[in-house]
Each structure stands twice: as structure tokens, then as C-alpha cells.
């Protein structure tokens, strides 16, 4: 007789774990099934090379919702976020642009390039504060669907209208611009310094198969700015112990609430009977029963791999097939024998504790995208570097370092060859690019891990290696994420839910989809707050 649970959560990434923790706290009997030997999904720390711990995929934290940290008492379960304050942009001519928490020094540094930009910088920061404050509301609600107009939708839309009508009109205008513009055009409205514009707009291309001049990237930029740490919008930080420590703290909170977490437990299929879910079949053939199954996997796996297409309306299948993943990034993780020595800022200064962005100009980023558009990895890629060991001594042996390099672009589909053939060539390109700014780099590399989009897909299951479970472009957001009619965490199969980054409000180590989906499940089980937000149970998509 198969074990019977209230809820089975497929996938033990941070969203699956958050989802499970909230359901377990509500008194449900919950089981999380994770295919890998450790929890975390793309939020993992692994000791690939002895003594050196890599945040293999995701590497910094900001978006994790403060209410989740508070409600699950994640600090009590071991979560500590260390500050990440500065950004260094090395330039090919040996100069640099360095910004940190010293307001006046940052002012002077930008003023070396343009006094006007130095002054605009504060204005820009304030504007993004307003924007982050405006969209923060959206991070806490299930998206109502204007195409359906159920009672929950109407309530949600009225709340939304009230929220946005309360904004100053110039803020509303700016928000519309952010949703439609390119990141490059957006920062162009403030600045003239190329390195500054490029580094700021780089936030708009991360995880997206678009260039800084592509419309829609301004939203991605905002997405990276709406995080907050201790009430400070736009603040980013390092999880002590690597991003895996985030997942472990959530797992610990979930277990403390009574959830069971099984690793090495890959789910092969979600079992559906008479249009209603009744459990899962594991890859090893075991079957587990549950009233509710929530998938934290991406929409393609959730809708097309785990259930039989025959269980789904044709328009949903078509819509999911059209959902864009297009993995665009890779990672290169390095174990270093010594600190990297930047020629533009020699020595072991505080800049090593911050981010280093290889984004000298908008043209540089756009050219990097040009290569990718036609199926090559960028010959000179955009690289976002952090050195966690500079602030967290537990990440590497004393005096040695780990360096995390997020690299874009690395298109999932290569024009020539396969990623298995070209993995090391890609790694060489990244190291060669970095060595132009870090002359001692090649001499101090002890170990190199190259993570291609194919590796991301193979290891974590993220389709095409897209780090957000689907691009965060406006056509794939809010009530369109992942597909119209099923943006509020339900699926066409009764009892089957989605709770991953492929749902609103999207990717990054945020946890919001997991929490909001838990609210949906609890409301449908009659355990939630009475005023459930979102579409009414049992209604199918209208096919609009």
C-alpha cells in the first residue's frame, strides 16, 4: 500500500521548499521529492574541488521575500546574509568605474567621467526606489486575470487598480516605460557615461536571451532592483555558506514544521485519475499517493513531462510549448590559489568583497549578444563576478579564494558543435577575457568548473538551462506567467499545482511563487484565509 500524503511537492529547490514549509505549518502532511542527493535545485553550494565551496549556479541573494525569512524564521534555521555593497567595472584602457557605499567617493568616481552623471545617479536611485515600492505590491499577490473576470479576478483587479491609481502620475508613466523599453534606452535617459550605462543595463539582460538594446529588458533590470534586505531596496548580499545555505535553512524550517524531504527521489510521472491528481510515480517505480501534487519544476516539465498531454486542453499545451526558455547564460567557478589582482585596482582592497562587472560599454554587451543571436557563445562575454571567500572565510582555505563568474551569452542551442564538445573552449574564452583585467589569473587557477546551459539543464532540470524557469520578459509575466488562465498556481488537472519560478512573480532566489502557491492550495483545501485571491476553483481556461 503506497504511503498517502496530503501534499507531494515535486522538486526541492528553494520554491518547492518554501511551498512545503508553508503547507506543513498549516498542518498538512507534506513530502518533498528531490531528484538530486541534496536539496536546493539551482540554489546549491557544492564542494566540487576539495576545500573550495562553489555556489554552483545562483550566487547572490536579494529578492528573497523578507516576510518569508521572518515567517519561516530562516535566521533561526541558519540563514545569514552578508553584505555586497560595491561594484567594480574594469575598463579595457586600464581605468575603472568603482561604486560603493561611500556616497561621496562614488560621486567623485562617477564625476571623473561626468559630473552630470554623478548628479543623475542619486536621482536614478530614487526613481528605482519608487519603482520597487510600486511593484512590491505585486510580489505579494496572485495575479488576477483580466481575461476571466471571476469574482477573485475582479477583486484582485480592483485592488491592483487602487494600488496603481495611488501612484504619482510620473511614477505610473515610468513604470509603463520600464515594462516596454530596452534597458539601454532606459539608462540612457539619465546617463552619458558608457561604462555606467552598460553596468546598470547589464541587470536587464541577466537570464534573458536579449541584448541591452532589446525592448523588454528594462523590466528585467527592475526585477533585479526590487529585492530588499532589512528594508533596503536594491540591496544584494551573500548567503553565508553559499546559496545552498538558503535552501538548507528553508529545508530545516520545513522539516521543523513536519514536512518530509526525500532526496535521490526523482519523480517520473504525476498520476492522474478522472481529471484529478492522486499521486506520483518515482523513477525507481515506487508510487506515492497524495490529494495534492505541487510541481516546483518549470512549466515545460510541469505540464508536458510530468503529466500526459491528453489530460490538458490543447491550447494550454500549445501555450506551454511557446513559453520561451532560451537559456542564455553559463557559469565558470574558479578555485584560486591567491586573491585575484585587478590591474585597474591592484591589491587586496575592499573591492574584492563586491561585484566585478565586465561590462565596459553598451556596444560590448550588444556585440556579446550579436554572437549569441546566431548561435555562438560570446567571444567577449558579459561577466558578473563575485568572490564569496573575500567575505565568507568558510568558502575556501585561508588565503585562497573561490571566484564565481556568471557569463552571458551562452546560447543553449549552438550553431556548431555541442556543448559537450565546446565546454572547455567556452571556459577558455571566459578565462582569457578575465585575464585581460586580472593579469595574475591564469597563474592562480587551481580548479575550473565550467557550467554550460546544457549542464544547468542536465543537473537541475531547468529547461534549456534558463535560470528563471522561463524568460522574465513582459509577455511572460504576471497573468501571462506561465500561460494565460493558469497564472494563479492552478493547472487544468484538479489537485495539481505549480509553485516554481515559472509562475508569478518569477525567478531569482525569491520564494514568492512557493509561498503564494501555498496560499492557493490552502484556500482550495478550505484551510486558507476566506477571501481567496485568484480564479475560482474548477473553472477551465476560456481559451482566449
Amino acid at each position, binding site marked *: 500500500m503506497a504511503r498517502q500524503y496530503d501534499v507531494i511537492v515535486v522538486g526541492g529547490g528553494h520554491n518547492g521548499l518554501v511551498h512545503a514549509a508553508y503547507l506543513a505549518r498549516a498542518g498538512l502532511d507534506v513530502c518533498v521529492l528531490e531528484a538530486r542527493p541534496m536539496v536546493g535545485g539551482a540554489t546549491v553550494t557544492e564542494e566540487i574541488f576539495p576545500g573550495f565551496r562553489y555556489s554552483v549556479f545562483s550566487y547572490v541573494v536579494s529578492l528573497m521575500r523578507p516576510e518569508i525569512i521572518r515567517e519561516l524564521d530562516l535566521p533561526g534555521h541558519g540563514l545569514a546574509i552578508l553584505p555586497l555593497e560595491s561594484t567594480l567595472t574594469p575598463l579595457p584602457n586600464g581605468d575603472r568605474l568603482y561604486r560603493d557605499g*561611500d556616497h*561621496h567617493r562614488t560621486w*567623485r568616481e562617477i564625476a571623473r567621467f561626468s559630473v552630470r552623471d*554623478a548628479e*543623475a545617479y542619486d536621482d536614478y536611485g530614487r526613481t528605482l526606489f*519608487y519603482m520597487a515600492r510600486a511593484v512590491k505590491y505585486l510580489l505579494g499577490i496572485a495575479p488576477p486575470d483580466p481575461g476571466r473576470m471571476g469574482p477573485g479576478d475582479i477583486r484582485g483587479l480592483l485592488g491592483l487598480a487602487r494600488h496603481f491609481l495611488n501612484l504619482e502620475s510620473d511614477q505610473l508613466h515610468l513604470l509603463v516605460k520600464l515594462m516596454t523599453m530596452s534597458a539601454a534606452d532606459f539608462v540612457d535617459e539619465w546617463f552619458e557615461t558608457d561604462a555606467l550605462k552598460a553596468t546598470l543595463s547589464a541587470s536587464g539582460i541577466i537570464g534573458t536571451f536579449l541584448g541591452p538594446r532589446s525592448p523588454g529588458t528594462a523590466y528585467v533590470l527592475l526585477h533585479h532592483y526590487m529585492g530588499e534586505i532589512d528594508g533596503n531596496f536594491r540591496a544584494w548580499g551573500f548567503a553565508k555558506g553559499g546559496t545552498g545555505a538558503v535552501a538548507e535553512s528553508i529545508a530545516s524550517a520545513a522539516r521543523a514544521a513536519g514536512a518530509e524531504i526525500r532526496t535521490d527521489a526523482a519523480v517520473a510521472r504525476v498520476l492522474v485519475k478522472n481529471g484529478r491528481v492522486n499521486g506520483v510515480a518515482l523513477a525507481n517505480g515506487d508510487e506515492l499517493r497524495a490529494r495534492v501534487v505541487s510541481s516546483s519544476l518549470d512549466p515545460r516539465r510541469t505540464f508536458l513531462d510530468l503529466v500526459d498531454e491528453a489530460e490538458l486542453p490543447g491550447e494550454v499545451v500549445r501555450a506551454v510549448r511557446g513559453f520561451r526558455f532560451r537559456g542564455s547564460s553559463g557559469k565558470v567557478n574558479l578555485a584560486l590559489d591567491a586573491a585575484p589582482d585587478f590591474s585597474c585596482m591592484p591589491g587586496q582592497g575592499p573591492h574584492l568583497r563586491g561585484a566585478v562587472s565586465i561590462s565596459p560599454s553598451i556596444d560590448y554587451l550588444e556585440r556579446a549578444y550579436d554572437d549569441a543571436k546566431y548561435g555562438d557563445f560570446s567571444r567577449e562575454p558579459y561577466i558578473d563576478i563575485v568572490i564569496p571567500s573575500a567575505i565568507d572565510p568558510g568558502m575556501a582555505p585561508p588565503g585562497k579564494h573561490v571566484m564565481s563568474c556568471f557569463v552571458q551569452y551562452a546560447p543553449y542551442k549552438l550553431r556548431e558543435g555541442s556543448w559537450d564538445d565546446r565546454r572547455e573552449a567556452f571556459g577558455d574564452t571566459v578565462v582569457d577575457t578575465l585575464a585581460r583585467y586580472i593579469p595574475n589569473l591564469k597563474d592562480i587557477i587551481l580548479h575550473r568548473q565550467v557550467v554550460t546551459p546544457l549542464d544547468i539543464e542536465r543537473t537541475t532540470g531547468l529547461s534549456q538551462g534558463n535560470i528563471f524557469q522561463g524568460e522574465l520578459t513582459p509577455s511572460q509575466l504576471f497573468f501571462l506567467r506561465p500561460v494565460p488562465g493558469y497564472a494563479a498556481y492552478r493547472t487544468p488537472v484538479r489537485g495539481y499545482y505549480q509553485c516554481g519560478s515559472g509562475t508569478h512573480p518569477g525567478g531569482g532566489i525569491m520564494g514568492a511563487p512557493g509561498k503564494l502557491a501555498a496560499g492557493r492550495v490552502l484556500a482550495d483545501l478550505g484551510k486558507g484565509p476566506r477571501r481567496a485571491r485568484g480564479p475560482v476553483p474548477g473553472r477551465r481556461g476560456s481559451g482566449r
Partner: protein
Amino acid sequence: MLLQTPFHPRTAPLCHHRRWRSWSGYASALSYEPGHEYEYYAVRSGSALFDISPLRKYEITGPDAAWLVDRLVTRSAFACPVGKVLYTPWCDEAGKIIDDGTVQRLDADCFRITAADPCLRWLQDCALGMDASVRDITLDIAALALQGPTSRDILSRVATGAAIVTLPFFALTEGFIGPAPVTITRTGYTGDLGYEIWARPEHALRVWDALVETGRGYGLAPAGLDALDVARIEAGLLLKEVDYVSSWTALIESRKSSPYEAGLGWTVQPRPGRDFVGSRALEREAAKPSDWALAGLEVDWPRIEERFAAVGLPPLVAGRASRDAAPIFAAGARAAPRQVGYATSSTFSPILKKYIALATIRRGFAKPGTRVDFELTVEFVRRTVSATVVETPFFDPARKRS
């Protein structure tokens, strides 16, 4: 890392207690001695020498310079003949204050503006379509304030080629200190007789040395920001981001202030056909006044003493000026306290022997003579003491203008 002003080689050895703070990113002495009393009394009985180099300075030149300044600030540039200086705020389109400073008219088509914070971009954007150019000259000019009753005697002995003795209040003159060419303005932030001296950085130390040497016989003391803060409150002079919040830094609308609300209504100088930034909004506000106003408060010192005496303490409020906002309540409504404003700066005035405050307060309570209650925390318990609205400046010696 804090920068050093051109006077740092002189000020650093004097700052025995290393009481520095950041003023626009520059190391600026809070006081040179452990306390600021001597430095404060230098302002009121001898002369105090302040390094004010961190001020932002801009130069506006060109055939349209006067038109540009007239468009930028609330006071009219055409009311400022060559050789005069204006104190003025400037506003955004909504008539809310961005910053305040002085405008010096050096020539028919040359002005210098001082500002608390950077605003080159704003000045340049306002100059669009005008034949005038704006230059940031912050680093090109080192500045000192010489303030106090003996400042005229000192400066008239030190400066050559300048008629210091007859220089009127808010006028400027060119001259020399030793070989160094300087601009001297009869301005300051203390409400006392005083001057500000503007020189090239390479001449800074010579200017300092000349003033200190001659000043020795006239009670001159280098002074820091703590003494300045007490003096400027006595003079009723506002401090940006303390007594008002710039419309550029205010995150919410209610934090912003118009000149009328900040007690600077007298600087709004409309003229038929004059269109300056914020003029339309200010015209509307003049017709329909805001509910908020700036008021000076004299807090009843005997009541403060009583409050402390009740717990067996002497009045522990004397000392430095406070920038902690304190709520102001309608007088005497102990049962149902009604907050009608907040004090933004307050200090014990050593020269007046009074406890004084600058407050933003409902217009209905801003009339001199109105009684209000001022919140004071005594031994961790919040109390109120009565206070009276008075005209500012609190301290206004005849020598300031004579």
C-alpha cells in the same frame, strides 16, 4: 575616505581631539578643542575662522547670465547689482525648495552661486537655449568664513586693495591678502558681523596664516561645525536636510517645503512677466497659503529646570545644538494632546540664556506670542514644557548690518 580641504595642513594639527565629520565628503572639524564653547564665544565676542571650502560653487557667465540666474532662483537677479550678494533658495517646478545659498554678482555677466549639494546638471538644464554657461568651480575656490565682532578689524588690516571698513552687508569686493587675490563678501552663517573670503586653493594657506597672525590680537579662534550650528540657530538660518528637506531627496511629498513654508516667503520676488522655476506654483500658493509655516520657539527655561529638578537632576539640555526633531503640541491639551508641528533644530543659546528652536508648525500656531508645548525627554520619560512662538532671528546684533 574623506578628502582634505586646501586648509587641512593648518586645521589638522589644531584638531587635537580628532573630532572630524564628513561635510560633503571632506574632513571637517566639529570642534578643535574638546568642547565648542570657546569657539562659539569667538563668534560672539572675538572672531571665529571657519573652513567652508566644502560648499559647492558654480560660476555662471555669458550674455544671458543674469537671465539664467533670474530664472533659477526665487529672488530676482535684476535686483542684484554688480558687487552685491543675495541669499536665496531655488525651487523645482512644483515650488518646493531644492537647495539654498548665496548668489554673488561679480560682473554684469558673471555670477557665482554657492550650494550645499551638487546641482550642475540642474543649472545646466535650466540654461538650455540661453547664451550662458555654467561651470563647477568647487575645486577652484577655497573658502573661509571670518565671523565675529572683531572680524572687520582683522580683515581691514589683512586685506589690501579692498574697502573693508565701508563694505556694506551682503556686498562683495575684490582685493588681496598678501600676494593672493581674493574675493571678500560680507556674508556668513552666524548672524554676526562677518565676512567670507574666496581664494584660489594654491593661496589658501597664505590667506589662513595672514588671518590667524593678525587675528591673534583680536580674539580669533579657528572654529568648527558645533559652534557654527549654535550660532546659525540663534541667527534663525536654515540648514538643508535638517530644517527642510530638499525636494530632490524627499522620498515622500509631505517632506518637501516651499519657501513660504520654510519661512523664506520674503525671498519670493515675482514681477509681472517674470517666469522663474516654480513661479507658477508659488503664485498659486501665495493666493492660497499652505497650512505649514516656520516658527521660532522660545522654550520656557524655568519649566525645563523644573522638569529635571523633579527627578533630582540639573537641566541636562545645555551643550550642543540638537538636530533630533521634537514634536510640538497645541498648548495645554494634556488629556488629548494634538500635535501641531515639530521642532527641527534646537539649542541652548549661551548669549541669550534661552532654549530656542526652529520649528515647522501649523500656520494657525505660527503667530508670535502663541503658546505651544515642546516635547522633552527627561530621564527616559517623555514630558512637555511650554514654549512661545517668537520672531526670528533670535539674536540680531546691530553690528551685523552696520
